[in-house]
């Protein structure tokens, strides 16, 4: 019986291949049932996202199970098996455990630390469970993978820093204002991206939201969607005086907001900082504005630069996460190994104890006049012999399980002592 994971991902398979193999939920149920019916796997979970298709399984003959599983998968999706075969990777035992932990922790993702993958793994697990394809081995592997993913998230900063332009803007705002509660936002121009950034800010407590636009109807519409207030376009500088964060995204060919305008606005603010997020190209805010005291002005390139720095930061954190995962894999295997050998140790003890008890009983029956001390001595002697004999095989079993290869030893012990499998 062995655990393996086999599949393909964004790392080694082009998107054309991945999308051919990707399976939706209904088809997945069908496929899981089909694979279970083939009788080659004891347990199976299939993870299918746009970046990976992977089979996690426990089987007596992993090679055969893998081949059968993927043949069925290819047949379901109408893909030529030979085209898939080349891109497949397979991990077994400890490496499979590590892979499961890395995937759930988003270390194997295209954007390291992205949060969706954990949900996708959980869904795949739940789906396989509902198809009764999950047994004790995959159950403990996946529940542990969820725990490890959570640990990675809380103990490293892998997912801490924003990797999208709109979230990077929110992060910058927080680095300027600390909390965003009660910070007023002004949207100049009404694009999808500025709406998204405004939504993120509002989620963090920013309030109220003002919207201005050359087209009054458009301003009103956007104000409605954001539960904000529309402001006439010619009152732009009045609005600037009232807010802390400005998001600009108009299609104007020339900057709308110049240095003089902002300087006048800043005069009445008694040093309250003003943060411009200029996502318009060409820019809406004159570059010189950023040189004013207490004014911070980020254009789209600046924001991308922050995103790049954040990505590098995630890679740095990923190294720490890998070390954490190494430790977790070790712990998991040790626990797992013990779980595997414990039934055998118990039945081995029971078997020898039964022999000992039987023999002691027979001996004592032949010594009816023996004083209590003699009886006790016989009990103690026999127990000591049994314990001495058991010591070496039990130690060996525990060691082999920690080393990750208890199977041959388990078989040997069963064979030698005539134990029956439970």
């Amino acid at each position: 019986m062995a655990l393996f994971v086999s599949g393909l991902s964004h790392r080694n398979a082009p998107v054309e291949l991945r999308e051919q193999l990707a399976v939706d939920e209904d088809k997945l149920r069908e496929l899981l049932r089909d694979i279970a019916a083939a009788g080659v796997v004891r347990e199976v979970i299939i993870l299918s996202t746009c970046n990976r298709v992977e089979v996690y399984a426990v089987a007596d003959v992993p090679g055969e199970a893998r081949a059968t599983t993927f043949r069925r998968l290819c047949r379901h999706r109408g893909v030529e098996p030979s085209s898939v075969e080349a891109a497949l990777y397979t991990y077994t035992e400890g490496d499979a455990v590590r892979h499961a932990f890395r995937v759930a922790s988003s270390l194997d993702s295209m954007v390291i630390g992205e949060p969706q993958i954990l949900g996708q793994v959980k869904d795949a697990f739940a789906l396989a469970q509902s198809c009764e394809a999950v047994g004790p081995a995959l159950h403990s592997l996946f529940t542990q993978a969820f725990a490890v993913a959570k640990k990675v998230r809380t103990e490293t900063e892998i997912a801490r820093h924003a990797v999208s332009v709109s979230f990077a803007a929110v992060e910058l705002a927080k680095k300027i204002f600390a909390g965003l509660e009660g910070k007023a936002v002004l949207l100049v121009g009404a694009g999808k991206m500025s709406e998204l950034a405004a939504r993120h800010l509002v989620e963090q407590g920013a309030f109220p939201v003002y919207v201005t636009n050359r087209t009054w109807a458009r301003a009103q519409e956007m104000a409605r969607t954001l539960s904000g207030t529309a402001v006439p376009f010619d009152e732009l500088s009045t609005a600037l005086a009232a807010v802390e964060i400005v998001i600009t995204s108009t299609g104007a060919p020339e900057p709308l907001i110049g240095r003089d305008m902002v300087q006048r606005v800043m005069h009445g603010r008694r040093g309250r900082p003003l943060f411009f997020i200029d996502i318009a190209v060409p820019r809406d805010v004159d570059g010189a504005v950023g040189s004013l005291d207490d004014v911070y002005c980020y254009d789209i390139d600046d924001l991308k630069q922050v995103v790049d720095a954040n990505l590098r930061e995630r890679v740095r954190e990923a190294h720490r996460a890998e070390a954490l995962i190494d430790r977790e894999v070790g712990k998991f295997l040790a626990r797992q190994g013990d779980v595997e050998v414990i039934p055998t140790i118990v039945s081995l003890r029971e078997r020898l104890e039964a022999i000992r008890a039987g023999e002691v009983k027979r001996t004592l029956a032949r010594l009816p006049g023996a004083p209590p001390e003699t009886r006790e001595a016989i009990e103690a002697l026999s127990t000591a012999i049994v314990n001495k004999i058991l010591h070496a095989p039990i130690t060996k079993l525990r060691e082999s399980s920690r080393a990750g290869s208890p199977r041959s030893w388990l078989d040997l012990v069963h064979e030698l002592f005539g134990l029956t499998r439970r």
Partner: protein
Amino acid sequence: MHQTLLTVAIIGYVVATGLALAYLVQREELLHRLASLATLTAWVLHTVALLTLAFNLGRPPLASMPEAVSVAVWVVVVLEMWIERRSGLSVLGAFVLPVAVVFSMQSTPTRSLIGPTLSGAWLWVHIGLALVGIAALVLNFAGAVMYLLQEHQLRTKRPGTFYYSLPALATLDRLTYRTLALGFPFLTTGLILGVLWAGTAWGSVFTFDPLALSSYVAWAVYAATLAGRATGGWHGRRAAYFAIVGFAVLMLTLGAGLFLPGKHGG
């Protein structure tokens, strides 16, 4: 006895400084915990050392410049630990502890701070209050340095270590303001007592004493900053620059006390 304890305490501060700086760069929670532990341990040893010294001398350990500076360091560390715990400003130690270590390193032989004519409870109060004020202003300085570093990061738009490890500008500005608001009254009261004392003991308020003169200048800088803040406009970068200037003058003051002849030098 107290000298050994003090040496061990200073070594403890050095270790804590190293750990705090490592935490600033690495952002590893374990480093922060170790730094906090080292700081607390060193501070406890420092406390015992000061108590032992006071007991041996039979008076507060404030009469010579090294003694006074040691007490100032003790107050600085207390404030650092307190503010860090209260505000969750985990990188504060990296900016405060190096100053504490530099202070601790001053190794001039013991010079009496107080001339033979001077003694009495008011004098201890004068020195003690001034030292608490100076300690708070060390934190004011640390806050200002952190503010300028973070502001620089945000202006150059290239996030580096400080961008990630330092808190928000608003938080740092609040820290510099609060430490100034805390330190200034102590410094003021301490100075007033000193002036009154000078009037009675030296015969004149305006005798030439380098430490006294330099401390008036420092006081004026801090007073101007506080006034500027209160009446609006002065905050952020400008306030941070003033905090650094004020601190520089304060260092001159202590330097004057340590190295220049004068009434404080005895």
